[in-house]
């Protein structure tokens, strides 16, 4: 895991989450902005996956359980597409809030991944 990249990813996920929740509560149905924000979160997760696979080859090893790390990563990868897809089925304000919930959940999972990678015992 690359520290600065992970923090950027966290910032993007939290921002996307808050943005979607605010827009949703303001009555907006999912649109290009909200779906784009979630798509960006997803792309960063895919980059994170590539980084995680490549990092050990460069001496950047996880200190915690790799099994747990990848369980979080795979779980997180599922969330944005599921939320976007569900939002396409019913275009209401609450679907936008769901996008926000998914992005925030990804943020929590990425933070746990960071702990597992960098802090022993996590």
């Amino acid at each position: 895991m690359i520290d600065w990249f992970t923090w950027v990813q966290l910032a993007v996920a939290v921002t996307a989450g808050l943005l979607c929740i605010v827009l949703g509560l303001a009555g907006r149905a999912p649109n290009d902005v909200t779906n784009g924000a979630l798509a960006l979160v997803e792309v960063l997760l895919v980059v994170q996956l590539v980084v995680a696979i490549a990092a050990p080859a460069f001496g950047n090893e996880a200190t915690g359980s790799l099994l747990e790390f990848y369980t979080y990563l795979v779980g997180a990868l599922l969330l944005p597409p599921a939320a976007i897809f569900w939002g396409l089925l019913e275009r209401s304000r609450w679907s936008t809030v769901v996008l926000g919930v998914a992005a925030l959940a990804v943020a929590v999972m990425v933070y746990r991944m960071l702990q597992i990678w960098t802090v022993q015992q996590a």
Partner: protein
Amino acid sequence: MTNVQSARPETDRRRRMSGIGRVLVAVYGVLALAALGRSFVQIVAKFDEAPLAYALSALAAAVYVVATVALVRSGRGWYRVAWATIVFEFTGVLVIGTLSIVYPDLFPHDTVWSWFGRGYLFIPLVLPVLGMWWLAKHRPPAAPSRGANGADAA
């Protein structure tokens, strides 16, 4: 989905999972995913350490998944399944939560429900209450008092 349900599209589905209920279902989904992931790791990596706690985790995870599906699906059958699973969760979090505090030795390792779901921001404690409230407010169209073809009238 059965033919009966596709004959009355939208209306039925709308009752259960539309509006703010979607957010409820989404949070259920995330919790189900979290519980599944954790229990997968526990069982693969260290089942021998605490078989009771980890078996419970797996059971809880499975029930969360069923509850999520039941909340999304329409029809009276799924409505009952939703009630059963949510009541099971609520009972679980109360019983295991209390036991884990009164007899910590019983649960040396965390479960979803230890300390009333503290490891999950107490979401396991709050969610069943919201779920039961939601179900009580959104009975399926063919309620017992209505008769089988109540949906056509709606």
